[in-house]
């Protein structure tokens, strides 16, 4: 059966993939998880109305690291890339990810620099949870910065008015207090 309202989650090996599914389930929206190795036909079959790219233990430039199926970017649907997924969006669009950048694990403060409908209602210095060694060093031209962490790391960015969104922090975990609020908007986009 085809779920016209499926949010597709592509799993790059994150510890939190099921939490992403849970956050979407909480919006009463159907979601499915596919491994990153799934063939393009499987993605097409789901006819997703939005796609989430999960985090993962690899570094985007590492040999053998899972890659983004370019088809995803051609679907014309909202895309949310989290952590590693953000890195994949960057490499696809011509941004730069640094492996020797600032590492962040656990608590970080989110400072919103530019408003976005997806980060609506996030208060100044909201708590977010990080788990990354890599970070985005240079955004592609068509992207804009939304927020940075207290350590200066690029924490969220978007292009096309939020249709494609990347977060370095993990909005799906409970310890990201307000960042989770992007799921209601994203799931219903």
């Amino acid at each position, binding site marked *: 059966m085809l779920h016209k309202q499926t949010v597709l989650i592509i799993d*790059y090996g994150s510890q939190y993939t099921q939490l992403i599914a849970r956050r979407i389930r909480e919006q009463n929206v159907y979601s499915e998880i596919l491994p990153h190795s799934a063939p393009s036909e499987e993605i097409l079959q789901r006819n997703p109305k939005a796609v989430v790219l999960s985090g993962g233990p690899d570094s985007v430039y590492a040999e053998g690291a899972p890659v983004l199926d370019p088809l995803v970017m051609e679907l014309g649907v909202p895309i949310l890339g989290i952590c590693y997924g953000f890195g994949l969006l960057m490499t696809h669009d011509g941004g730069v990810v640094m492996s020797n950048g600032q590492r962040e694990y656990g608590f970080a403060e989110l400072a919103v620099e530019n408003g976005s409908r997806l980060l609506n209602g996030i208060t100044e210095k909201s708590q977010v949870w990080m788990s990354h060694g890599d970070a985005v060093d240079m955004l592609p031209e068509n992207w804009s910065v939304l927020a940075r962490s207290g350590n200066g790391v690029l924490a969220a960015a978007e292009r096309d008015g939020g249709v494609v969104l990347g977060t370095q922090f993990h909005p799906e975990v409970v310890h990201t207090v307000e960042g989770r609020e992007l799921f209601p908007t994203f799931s219903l986009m």
Partner: protein
Amino acid sequence: MESTIEEIRRTVGEEKVLCGVSGGVDSAVLAKLIHKAVGSQLRCVFVDHGLLRKNEPDYISGRLAQSLGFEVEVHDFSETFLSKLDGIVDPEEKRRIIGEQFIRSFESAVQSGADFRFLGQGTLYPDIIESGGVRGTADVIKSHHNVGGLPDDMEFELLEPLRELFKDEVRKVGKELGLPEDVLGRHPFPGPGLGVRIIGEITKERVKILQEADHIFIDALRKHGIYDKIWQAFAVLVPVKTVGVMGDERTYANLIALRAVTSVDGMTADWYRLPENVLSEVSNKIVNLVTGVNRVVYDVSSKPPSTIEWE
């Protein structure tokens, strides 16, 4: 929940189910759930592996059995476990041995495992993720007692009806099944028990030290009314000997680390801001009452980068 019960009934049919009860929330909910589905086809066995909290066997045969409304057999295998673990220091090796011995003990406790086709396990979602994920993509953080370490020649089929749930969801199921707050509100306790809270080699003496220290800590949390605000709290025995001075005498003894974290699903966690007076009371009591300890520290790491347990 009704559909899960129906599914258990369908899977099990007329066969018998053996269920390991650990004293924790997951296995209590699991046992109650399976019992609701297949009634007396279920037999509950508690294996005392000697790596338990102080007074735990009494809790199992007393309060827990009473709350469940059916019998839980208690079998003492502590000597076997301790001898198998003799000289083992690697945490993954410890987990594997405990997991394997656990199944062996089960088989021995029920005499003939062949009568039981199914083994109920309270595996939850985070267990599977930390053991390498459903699809094998996630990195292995720790092999879990419920998932890793199962011997290949195991004679049971696994029944894991909670495997897609998170802890807070399991508690909700338990509440619906009518289990009382004090049983459902217990902090998570790992399958390998104190085995992974004693860093390095496990000895009888170290188990005893840790049991006493842990008991003092948990008691104080209950006394000050903060036990229920904490997701998980415990003591860890770190066999790093440091120098102390007790009664003008130089000591060279073990370190006890206290850990208390807040969490909702066990996936991420932050350290609990324990009030100073509680920390000071617990530290004071431990060094005064537990022989072999001369220093107490509080763990202030979140998950990530640390895990909740130390091993």
